[in-house]
């Protein structure tokens, strides 16, 4: 977003010397009377006005990000969509890649075994009158080589010799057929083989489905989720069962729906766990003990604080829930503010901490 506050416009126009001498004087006089403006102008002196604008635009965006939590949520949704797309992309890539390499091998075999007869027939029909037996033998050899090349190149064969084009086309068709056969075969095969490789992707997909499905998922569905209800509290096992659900393929949608609804329930449970210091409770305690500044006359006891976390895990909106003394409260807030970051499962977590005064 472009920052276009009145004051920036005036500052820019002053520095770009767009103003007449009188206007410039008015602005300078205003600055002489207003130390805020005066010092700001001193700061901008070293900057190009384009740089000024760019810096302010960047700041505007950062300000937007801070005042619009909804914006963050939107970007999270975006990220989820991108992740889903990438997940699908990767799994497709794996499936196709595996299939292609299989097709290469299979096509090689099938062309060598199956396509002998049609090729001979073809040559008999097409070339009997035109090609001498000698040339026939040569052509056969060349065709054979060409087929080998072709199958090695996995379909990227382009007919270099116009003579052979006719003869190889039906064979190519044949190999395409066998390719589609083998595709079907390798598809299931690679599904089995890439079952473990694709596990991650499956998880991602399931997780993404959760976003969509969980909107409709009712608690009724959750109650019905018999296979998944056993693994309520174990997301890991949950994932395993979801993976197996995709393999069995029967009533996948139903299972996924149930599973995702349970996952949502577990997700809610996780959200309720309070934030804890990212460095660990004991490390946080030792940080407090090390940095706490006490003065004489401070009473012993605890100050209880409640706070929210920003997206960086920094405590914000700190409030004293149990006061000890004004200085103690301030010190406790200082320690929390300058202390290590916290981590929580949800974005809008509210945490509590007690600071002990010795």
């Amino acid at each position, binding site marked *: 977003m472009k920052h276009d506050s009145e004051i920036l416009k005036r500052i820019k126009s002053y520095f770009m010397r767009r103003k007449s001498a009188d206007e410039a004087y008015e602005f300078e006089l205003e600055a*002489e009377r*207003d130390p805020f403006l005066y010092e*700001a*102008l001193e700061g901008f002196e070293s900057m190009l006005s384009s740089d000024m604008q760019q810096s302010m635009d960047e*700041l505007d965006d950062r300000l*937007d990000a801070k005042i619009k939590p909804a914006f963050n949520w939107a970007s999270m949704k975006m990220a989820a969509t991108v992740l889903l797309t990438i997940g699908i992309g990767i799994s497709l890539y794996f499936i196709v890649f595996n299939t292609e390499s299989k097709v290469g091998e299979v096509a090689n075999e099938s062309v060598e075994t199956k396509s002998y007869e049609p090729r001979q027939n073809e040559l008999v029909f097409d070339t009997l009158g035109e090609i001498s037996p000698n040339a026939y033998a040569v052509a056969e050899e060349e065709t054979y080589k060409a087929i080998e090349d072709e199958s090695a190149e996995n379909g990227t064969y382009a007919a270099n010799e116009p003579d052979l084009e006719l003869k190889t086309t039906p064979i190519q068709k044949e190999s395409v057929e066998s390719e589609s056969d083998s595709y079907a075969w390798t598809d299931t095969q690679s599904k089995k083989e890439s079952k473990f490789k694709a596990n991650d992707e499956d998880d991602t997909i399931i997780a993404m489905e959760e976003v969509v499905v969980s909107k409709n998922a009712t608690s009724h569905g959750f109650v019905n989720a018999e296979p998944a209800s056993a693994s309520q509290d174990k997301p890991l096992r949950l994932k395993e069962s979801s993976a197996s659900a995709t393999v069995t393929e029967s009533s996948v949608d139903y299972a996924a729906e149930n599973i995702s609804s349970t996952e949502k329930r577990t997700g809610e449970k996780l959200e309720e766990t309070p934030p804890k210091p990212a460095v660990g409770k004991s490390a946080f305690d030792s940080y407090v003990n090390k940095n706490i500044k006490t003065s004489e006359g401070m009473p012993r006891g605890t100050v209880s604080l409640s706070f929210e976390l920003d997206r960086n895990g920094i405590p914000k909106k700190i409030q004293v829930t149990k006061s000890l003394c004004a200085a103690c409260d301030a010190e406790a807030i200082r320690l929390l503010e300058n202390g290590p970051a916290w981590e929580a499962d949800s974005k809008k977590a509210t945490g509590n901490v007690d600071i002990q005064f010795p």
Partner: protein
Amino acid sequence: MANAPTLSDEELYRAFLSTQDTKILGEIYRKNMALVFGVCMKYMGEKHEAQDATMEIFERLLTQHIKTEIKSFRAYLYVMSKNHCLMKKRGEKVIHVQITESDMELAMEVHPIDESERNEARLKTCLNELKDMQKTCVELFYLGKRSYMEISNELRVTINAVKSNIQNGKRNLKLCLEHKS
């Protein structure tokens, strides 16, 4: 106070204090952000550091609630920005210092020469006691109503020299006026 900011900033700030709506504070801040950034540029000297400081000051505004009534949001913002940058610059951990009314008054104090009703007679006598260059610059600016650029061209000195001469001249003028009264 000369150049008093519009009432709306203070009203909006009060609205923010009662509703805790970050959007309101965001809009007041956006209006004044260029000034904050400029001050941060002056003290931090580097663009990215100044940008970081500008955002930190906003966060402080969000979390820190002044106990006394704010007469001028702008003055409050100015003192806060300056404090924050100075502490950051010194490498100190920025702690929450409660900004008092007197801090703000001191920061936004208006020089006698900038006041609309000034005692011309006393000013004249004190002006004559200033050093040559300071006197010339102050006279040209305040009485001659010339811009820095014009004075700089006229006296063949840099704009910065003109500005510092005016600043120092004003300081000495103030001392003289206080002494005389």
